[in-house]
């Protein structure tokens, strides 16, 4: 089972931290969570992947869908602190240029 921590920073940035394995079942929840944030007016989102041990193609799809939704609303989605195995998925698919990994959650929206 996967758990999502969702919080909003003082700057109004939504932080989603999935813990555990992001598979097909969890990807659906992730997509709903991201869409819910954007619909609720939080257009800047950081997905904190420090606690994500595994990420499959459905989860990658959920992140891309979240990215598109956020951008359409005039915001953006960024990822922070992916583990090496999760980073491999981004590199293989050449998605690391669209979803560039940030070193920490706090500064993910600085540049």
């Amino acid at each position, binding site marked *: 089972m996967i758990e999502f921590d969702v919080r909003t920073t003082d700057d109004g940035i939504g932080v989603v931290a999935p813990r555990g394995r992001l598979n097909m079942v969890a990807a659906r929840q992730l997509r709903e969570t991201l869409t819910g944030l954007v619909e609720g007016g939080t257009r800047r989102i950081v997905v904190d992947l420090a606690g994500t041990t595994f990420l499959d*193609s*459905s989860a*990658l799809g959920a992140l*891309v869908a979240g990215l598109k939704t956020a951008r359409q609303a005039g915001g953006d989605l960024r990822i922070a602190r992916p583990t090496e195995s999760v980073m491999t998925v981004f590199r293989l698919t050449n998605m690391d240029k669209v979803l560039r990994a940030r070193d920490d959650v706090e500064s993910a929206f600085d540049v």
Partner: protein
Amino acid sequence: MFSEDRPTSTRDAGPDGRPVERRRRADRADRAGTPPDGVERRRQRAVDSLGLSVPARQQRDDRFDRITRLAARIFDASWAGITVLDGDQAWFPSAQGFDIPLMPREDTFCSRTTSNARLTVVPDATLDPDYAGLPAVVNDGIRFYAGVPMTDTLGNVIGVFCVYDHSPRTMPGRDLETLEDLAAWAQSELVGSSEMLRAGQVQKAMLPAAPLHRDGWDVDGICLPALAVGGDLFDFALTNGVIHIGLGDVMGKGTGAALVGAGVRAAVRSTHPEVVTGTDLGTTTHRVARTLRGDLERNESFVTLFQCAIDVASGSVRYADAGAGLCVLLRVDGTVERLTSEDRPLGILPDDTWTEHRTTIDPGDRLLVFSDGLLDLLHDQVEWWPEVGTLVGEHADPAGLLLAVRELTAAQVALDDVTAVAVYRSPEARE
């Protein structure tokens, strides 16, 4: 085929309790032994693979509720349910008579049944030290329990179908048979319906019918969906002295991915005549992307797609890779090369383009292109290509290599579709 494989050692459990006592001692011996880690690991992967992990929100399924309701009524049982063990927790896809969302695995009767992997009957739990302390017994006054393990097609226990009662009782052989029938019915609902098995046959029939053997070249492929159907596909054909190969992976798995995958296959096929006459693979990939764009957008899906065109006479290779990144070329001298690109999958950004790259397959060289379902099964998923190179080097022909991939998939219980296409060029060059 499921129910026939299940051992039923306690069918003769007598009303006097003696045979039951003997069985329980045997069970204790089983549990006292070291639990085989491999069995539990495979079991857990099977649970994951079928999407039976603990859901975020409590959910009941009509398909299962109908069967457990029936069981409660037939046996006049206080409770009936289906239990699934996920990690150290137990949850109940269906429950009649009780309403517990989640329990520690060790606190359940069904944890014992799962370890036993066979029909387990407890006539009076208060008399059995293995069960007397369970919360259902102490807090809810449960005395009787009967549980039948439910397995996937490979025999991994994925759940338990069970009935409970507040009174001690026994279960005559005929009732045990009925319980097993109900369990087998629920099991087929859990694992997938016969309709989906047929869909799987259709999808299989859409793959190349036979390997390719021509002028010192051997090409063969394998596609093993994690569920009845999958989102992986491959295709190859030889026309005008050019072998055109495609391997695609639609996001996710199961029926939705398979429907999108059928479209991908058709779109790639429609470019085959141009590919074999030399049209740039970046251009044809772009055309495939344009064809699929609406479908992918509406389904919020994407596809990774590797394609190559091999000139049989010269061994020159043109390839384009849309975000797959999983192709290894094992040179005759043992060097492992990767065929890579900078391009993204189809369906990510509207302005994306794809580029054709070139290499050569010389006599004795071997190429393996595969989907990420196989990557999941490797030991090192970060620096994976040496392991793949070794695997390719160990097998003298594509058939042997693909058999090894099939065995690896079965042994590890793949979570995702596993697909691979192997190209071997004979060491003796033929003109």
